């Protein structure tokens, strides 16, 4: 995944706000990149760009060799469906559907529902015993597991997580990150936006955003893990 000179600007009244400016980033398979920064620094904007939810003002986003900024809307939707998984701070599970049905839903969009695949993914994230449960009966950590399983069911190359643990207890938070480690080990590329430096510490690479720009002097590649162990 590569981003080249990406800008995303919004007109706010007479002035132009650059939510993202001059942004470059490359993520390799099996890599987990943490995006940190204050509120309003552009983290969500960046994930939306990578996730093909929004189009840049200028610049390119290339995922798995495809320049997604050049894709027409229809193909973009299909591309997102097949190559990208999303996880949000709020889990957005459908309350009337079982765990297995929630997990399987993206396959419905791809018209390729596969029970075995759903079962395998649920087992992978530790939900094997709760497949028929309704989301309302689960705790936050398990709900996020469902969301992760759902993001993975169409076998994406890239997983985007926007504050995935913001609503979770400490233990559940660690478990989610354990799952991420496991997925990364299998070659999935993960980009995670977070406020939490401790979590960022578990990423292989951390990028700090300030006013939509990448801080070059950030802890990239040399994040001092001991620094945040306190």
């Amino acid at each position, binding site marked *: 995944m590569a981003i080249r000179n990406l800008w995303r600007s919004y007109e706010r009244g007479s002035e132009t706000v650059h939510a993202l400016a001059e942004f470059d980033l490359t993520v390799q398979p099996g890599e987990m990149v943490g995006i940190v920064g204050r509120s309003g620094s552009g983290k969500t904007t960046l994930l939306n760009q990578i996730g093909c939810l929004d189009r840049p003002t200028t610049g390119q986003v290339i995922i798995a060799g495809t320049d997604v900024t050049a894709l027409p809307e229809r193909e973009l939707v299909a591309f997102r469906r097949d190559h990208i998984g999303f996880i*949000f701070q709020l889990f957005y599970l*459908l309350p009337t*559907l079982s765990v*297995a049905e929630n997990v399987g839903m*993206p396959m419905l969009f791809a018209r390729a529902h596969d029970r075995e695949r759903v079962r395998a993914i649920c087992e992978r994230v530790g939900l094997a015993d709760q497949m028929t449960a309704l989301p309302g009966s689960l705790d936050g950590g398990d709900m996020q597991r469902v969301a992760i399983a759902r*993001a993975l069911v169409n076998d994406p190359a890239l997983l985007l997580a*926007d*504050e995935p643990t913001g609503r979770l207890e400490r233990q559940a938070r660690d478990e989610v990150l354990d799952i991420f480690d496991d997925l990364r080990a299998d070659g999935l590329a993960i980009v995670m936006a977070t406020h939490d430096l401790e979590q960022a510490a578990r990423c292989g690479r951390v990028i700090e955003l300030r006013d939509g720009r990448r801080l070059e002097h950030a802890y990239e590649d040399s994040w001092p893990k001991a620094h945040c162990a306190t």
Partner: protein
Amino acid sequence: MNWTAIALKNILRRPIRSILTVAGVGVAIAMLFNLLEFQRGYEKGLRSELSDLGAHIMIVPRGCPYEAATIVLHGGKWPRYMDEEWYQIVRGTEGIEASTAIIMDAIIRDGGRENLIYMGIDENYPSLRQSWRYASGDWFSGTQAAILGSSVARSMGVTAGGSITIEEKGRIPATEVTVAGVLERTNSQDDGLVFLPQHTMQQIFGLQGKLVMILVKLADVTQTEQVTAALRSASAEADAGMNIFPLSELLGTLTSLLSSTRVFVLAIVAVAFIIGGVGVLTTILMAVYERTREIGMMKAMGAAKSDIFRLIWLETLFTTIGGGVAGILLALLSGRGVVALLKTILPHTPADFALGMSGSTLAICMGVSVVLGVVAGTWPAWRAASISPITAIRGGSS
């Protein structure tokens, strides 16, 4: 898992709201169902009543034909009379296979709560009544005789060989007649009549030389128009005040009488559909609004616009189809009450008349529910399909 299951589960998410919406559609469908079935049953009942008459052309004295029809079909007190001689004009017309002249009167008892209808007939009457069978006895044995319809005989508790008394009433003296025959049940108005020989009846009731109706049976039904025209010109030539109309025409006039009522009912049904449809529209719009984030998430996961559109459309369709089914059940349950109500409103309703359930009415009602769903669902489905995932989810994370 499939879209249908998701749509159904979404509807059940707010059961009370969904039930109210379905009920709104159901009431409209029930009204439509009853309207359609009423019309069908009405025409059918009328047709069978007219065919029970066994005649093709009915001749009555000048006057309101609707009134005449009601009295002919149900019996009653006759306001006008025809001259007996006019019957000869009818008999002399070509193309007639059989004809019979009738005199009729009613004796009202119990202050109007009950009336017994007497019909004076000639020997030709049974030839128009294929369904006549005697339970006991036979045709008039003498002049002071009567034939009783099955229900009259039962309520009077007499059989052939017994006797009944025509009550004294005004100009009518109390008269005893022997019962020559009792008819088997015919399921027509005949069951409730007392038949007397025509001349006997004219004498007892003081209606000498008078008739109330002539029924004509044709040799060839396709000649109805020609025979009617011939009768009309013969009547005009003789300066006779006869009102000659084919029963096929009578059916038309009576059904058109119904159509003015129908327009009114149709207007009410239309209002019910507007209310039901708006109910569906707002319910689905509300559901889309409540589920904005969820729909945004689905789009982020790769749901195409068409996927979301279809989901919301399905939810609307299931709601209105549910309303259609509920409405049909409601109509079937309320049918009797509706008939009773309409009988009090309409000038003439067939005696043997109930709301049924025809395939065409079912098909129309279900078709209308589907169309309602398609129409009411399009706008909310389009709104849902246009939800932007970023704005929907942004709204969620703050």
